[in-house]
């Protein structure tokens, strides 16, 4: 039996498959469908200090081999997540969960992380400095190395848990942001968040999405994500979680060869609620096919021509 275990910032996972934030809620809907304990972990819905309704509808649009979304960080706020969602997460999932955090100021990021620091169920903090769908916040922190470093330092000071900074692909040089986060003390990086996109309805000549622009995800972005994971993994010495269009066990292995230690699965969960279960179950056979005995050994194993 091939060994699918990986270690992420000191925490051992049975496999590297992690549903991505915003595509898995707080686990409730999926736990009704299958035993989610087969997953490496999951990253829960992006959580902010205060509750947010998010953006007006429509928030979703079709794209070639993918989709656009502009949900706008709808969430009940960190206090309700701690009071209502984390106890349920502990009931349905028996390993550390990844807490995805967003903010609109450095202080807000730090405060939200501080409140989650005492939560036993939380293994890592995944700090989203890359949301393309909120104004005056989110992505603006992830497009400037100095801002990214400032958020990293503030969050690190607020928590004892491993801090994973989630990076935006909507930058000229993602390695500059990655290095800034690593130098500021980040324990890991996850990438990519969605690529900023847009669709127009030909009948109405208006943007399909009420927010005008939205984030592109799905198989369409996989090669872009893979390239960025490869670039970042070579540029830093901390673990990288690869994500962006991952839909199959083969995609997981490709991401890991590019340099990922673990892999998040996003949009695939929305069109196939069993996507992660399917990937986890397919991994051993695909590893066998490619002669991989120990999955953790292939990270960064791409040969250079």
């Amino acid at each position, binding site marked *: 039996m091939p060994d699918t275990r990986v270690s992420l910032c000191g925490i051992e996972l049975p496999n590297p498959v992690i549903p991505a934030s*915003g*595509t*898995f*809620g707080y686990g*409730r*809907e*999926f736990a*009704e*469908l299958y035993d989610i304990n087969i997953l490496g972990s999951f990253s829960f*819905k992006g959580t902010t200090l205060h509750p947010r*309704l*998010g953006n*007006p*509808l*429509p*928030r*979703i*649009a*079709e*794209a*070639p*081999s*993918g*989709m656009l*979304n502009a*949900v706008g960080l*709808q969430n009940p706020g960190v206090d309700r997540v701690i009071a209502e969602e984390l106890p349920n997460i502990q009931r349905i999932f028996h390993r550390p969960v990844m807490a995805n955090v967003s903010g609109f100021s450095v202080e807000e990021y730090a405060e939200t992380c501080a409140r989650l620091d005492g939560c036993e169920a939380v293994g890592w903090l995944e700090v989203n400095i890359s949301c393309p769908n909120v104004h005056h916040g989110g992505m603006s922190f992830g497009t400037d190395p100095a801002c990214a470093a400032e958020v990293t330092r503030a969050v690190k000071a607020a928590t004892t848990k491993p801090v994973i900074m989630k990076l935006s692909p909507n930058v000229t040089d993602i390695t500059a942001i990655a290095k800034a986060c690593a130098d500021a003390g980040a324990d890991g990086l996850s990438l990519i968040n969605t690529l900023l996109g847009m669709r127009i309805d030909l009948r109405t000549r208006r943007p*399909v999405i009420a927010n005008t622009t939205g984030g592109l995800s*799905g*198989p369409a972005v996989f090669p872009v994500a893979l390239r960025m994971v490869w670039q970042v993994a070579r540029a830093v010495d901390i673990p990288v979680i690869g994500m962006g269009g991952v839909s199959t066990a083969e995609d997981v292995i490709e991401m890991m060869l590019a340099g990922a230690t673990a892999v998040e699965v996003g*949009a695939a*969960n*929305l*069109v*196939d*609620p*069993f996507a992660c279960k399917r990937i986890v179950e397919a991994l051993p056979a695909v590893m066998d096919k490619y002669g991989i005995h120990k999955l953790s050994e292939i990270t960064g194993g791409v040969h250079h021509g």
Partner: protein
Amino acid sequence: MKQNRYTVTANRALAPNVYRMDLAGDTAPITAPGQFINLALDGLFLRRPISVCDWDEQGLVIIYKVVGKGTARMAELQPGASLDALVGLGNGYDVDACPVHPVLAGGGVGVPPLYGLAKRLLAAGKKPSVALGFNTAREIFYDMQFAALGVPVTVATVDGTAGKKGFVTDLIPEGAYVCACGPEPMLKAVHARASAGQFSFEARMGCGFGACMGCTCQTVTGYKRICKDGPVLEYEEILWSHE
């Protein structure tokens, strides 16, 4: 919710751009009229949510209007085609909550789920009446099917080419209990005329099962996901400012 495969047994036009598709397969996950299915279609990433018109042990009926790429692809499907669908999505109408004489008000392609509702209301010993609104006479569908159930049916057309000239609202007694489905302006007008009832909403959805927050609206009782907590909302909880 269940993920199942279905076989297309019929797929034909009922009116211009409006099609009825019959699907054979497991319908056990369907627990209420007004629920929907989410269909995977070749070449498209997102599934397409379509309300269930009617169902029995062998299969289900959906009625859809061709409005874009997804529904155009559906219209091309031939009998024998196999489809992957998530079934039993959404809350649906609460038959028990309806009084003895509810009015079922449908506008255009909002009409289909009311047919399944009418059958379940009749089975529960209730006596619904049906008010249907269309733009023009040639767009009318399913009026005869409702009539065949033995329920009173009235029709309105915007251009007056059939039934009463005007909107479906004009067919509804002031203060009625209404189960409605249709475009949002219609729902809003019906809501203003009714005193109670259940209203089914439509939205562009990501997942259709409550995971992505792609279709959330604000209600009196808090944020609701149209796909999971809806698509049917209670009269009292609807806030029209949510758009």
